[in-house]
């Protein structure tokens, strides 16, 4: 060809720009959508994880506590009966500790119903013994109940079974509702990210066409777009996921931050519940991975469909 006659000097060229442009309006819009949806989904994941952990914790606490009630009986020394009940309880396998509640503590329990300022010493109130059970060894409650009835006058054992069963039912409903909500939010996230990605790929249809026309294999075109949109998905997912994780970290730190403030103790009781465990953070990371995967797959499928339309 004639073009070989005068060979021009080599020019310095910039490193090749990416075939799919990175900083476009559609890319930024997609990144924002992904970040927001990941943030919302990660918050729900964390919230469901917290609710589940707390419900399990309540149930375990409930299952690890018993109450022995000793009613005052005329002619019997109440303090002596309480001491015997504590001995019986402590001798039982699986019991960690048994402690008699003071008269004042018992009075505080009744305050919501009877009001403050009453002299409870004149009332024949039963005394309560709080029994803590081991999380590992299963105590023989039948034997304990029998021993108490044989050895302690006026003693009865309350294993909270009715209350615990109700709480279990309620907690199961709460956890189920949480997971159902999580499923809905994840579905919404997948759909919105998927449609936003399709829109962003469609905005780049001219690039798909040109690549197709210059002889690029379909797989190469699909992979090029998939890599680009996977990176967008990871980036947006990390922004949203990190924001949600940061919120939970702050929630976990709040009790110590509030400790020195007047009234902070009360608030810390609430905020302390926002400390997310490792599984919660893994769940948030899972959402980020899912979003990035959905973005990549949606872009690949959209490019494939575009190529089919071109031909």
């Amino acid at each position, binding site marked *: 060809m004639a073009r070989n006659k005068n060979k021009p000097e*080599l020019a310095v060229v910039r490193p090749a720009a990416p075939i799919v442009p990175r900083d476009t309006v559609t890319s930024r819009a997609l990144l924002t959508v992904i970040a927001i949806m990941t943030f919302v989904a990660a918050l729900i994941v964390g919230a469901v994880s917290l609710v589940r952990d707390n419900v399990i914790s309540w149930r375990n606490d409930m299952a690890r506590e018993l109450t022995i009630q000793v009613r005052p009986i005329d002619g019997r020394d109440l303090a002596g009966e309480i001491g015997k009940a504590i001995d019986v309880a402590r001798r039982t396998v699986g019991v960690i500790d048994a402690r008699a509640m003071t008269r004042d503590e018992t009075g505080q329990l009744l305050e919501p119903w009877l009001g403050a300022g009453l002299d409870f010493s004149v009332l024949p109130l039963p005394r309560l013994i709080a029994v803590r059970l081991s999380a590992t060894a299963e105590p023989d409650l039948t034997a304990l109940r029998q021993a108490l009835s044989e050895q302690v006058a006026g003693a009865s054992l309350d294993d909270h079974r009715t209350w615990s069963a109700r709480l279990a039912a309620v907690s199961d409903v709460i956890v189920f509702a949480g997971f159902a909500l999580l499923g809905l939010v994840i579905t919404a996230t997948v759909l919105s990210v998927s449609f936003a990605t399709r829109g962003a790929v469609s905005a780049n249809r001219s690039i798909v066409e040109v690549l197709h*026309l210059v002889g690029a294999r379909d797989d190469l075109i699909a992979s090029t777009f998939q890599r680009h949109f996977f990176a967008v998905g990871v980036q947006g997912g990390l922004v949203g996921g990190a924001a949600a994780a940061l919120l939970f970290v702050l929630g976990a730190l709040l009790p110590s931050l509030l400790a020195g403030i007047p009234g902070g103790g009360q608030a810390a009781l609430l905020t302390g519940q926002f400390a997310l465990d490792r599984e919660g953070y893994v769940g948030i990371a899972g959402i980020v991975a899912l979003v990035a995967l959905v973005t990549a797959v949606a872009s690949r499928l959209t490019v494939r469909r575009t190529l089919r339309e071109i031909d």
Partner: protein
Amino acid sequence: MVRFENVGLRYGMGPEVLKDVSFDIKPNSFQFLTGPSGAGKTSLLRLLFLSLRPTRGLVNLFGYDVSGLRSDEVAVLRRRIGLVFQDFRLLDHLTTYENVSLPLRVQGRPEPTYRSHVIELLHWVGLGDRIHVLPPVLSGGEKQRTAIARALIARPELLLADEPTGNVDPPLARRLLRLFVELHKSGTSVVLATHDAGLMDQYDGRRLILADGRLHEQRPGGPKRN
């Protein structure tokens, strides 16, 4: 190189836009493809570029019957064909150099292996000083020469041009035609689709004339049609 035998094409359930089209394109040949708007020039070019499959008849390209080709085989075969559009189809975020080198880049060739070749070609089409420029800054003629360079960079055996002079003024159209003729003389077969009779009169090439979906042929040196 290319052989069409009784090719028919229809879109969906519509009427046939190409009817019993038969012709061949020989290596190192030059032909105009002409006809009124809507005669089927672009459809015929798309058949040649394997963007469409015929509804009936035989299309043989470089010895392959295109009806049995898989999509990856089509992509490989397409690399032997250069394509130039009236609307250029350049990527606005890539420089002139990057647009022209795109066909080699998608073949997976390392950049240093083709840099000198691309720059040499850009000088040849008169864009040696526009290497780093993005398409929105280029004039219509520069964009078209960039598109032509992109179509040529992989040294195609067949160059298809769809109204390449449609968006440029007559002097530039004549210059572009000289470029296509020079390409033909250097060994590339050229199919130049145009309805510009004035342009065709400037070079005595074979004319494939489409009218009502049927193809007629006019050999070089034959009587001219207006």
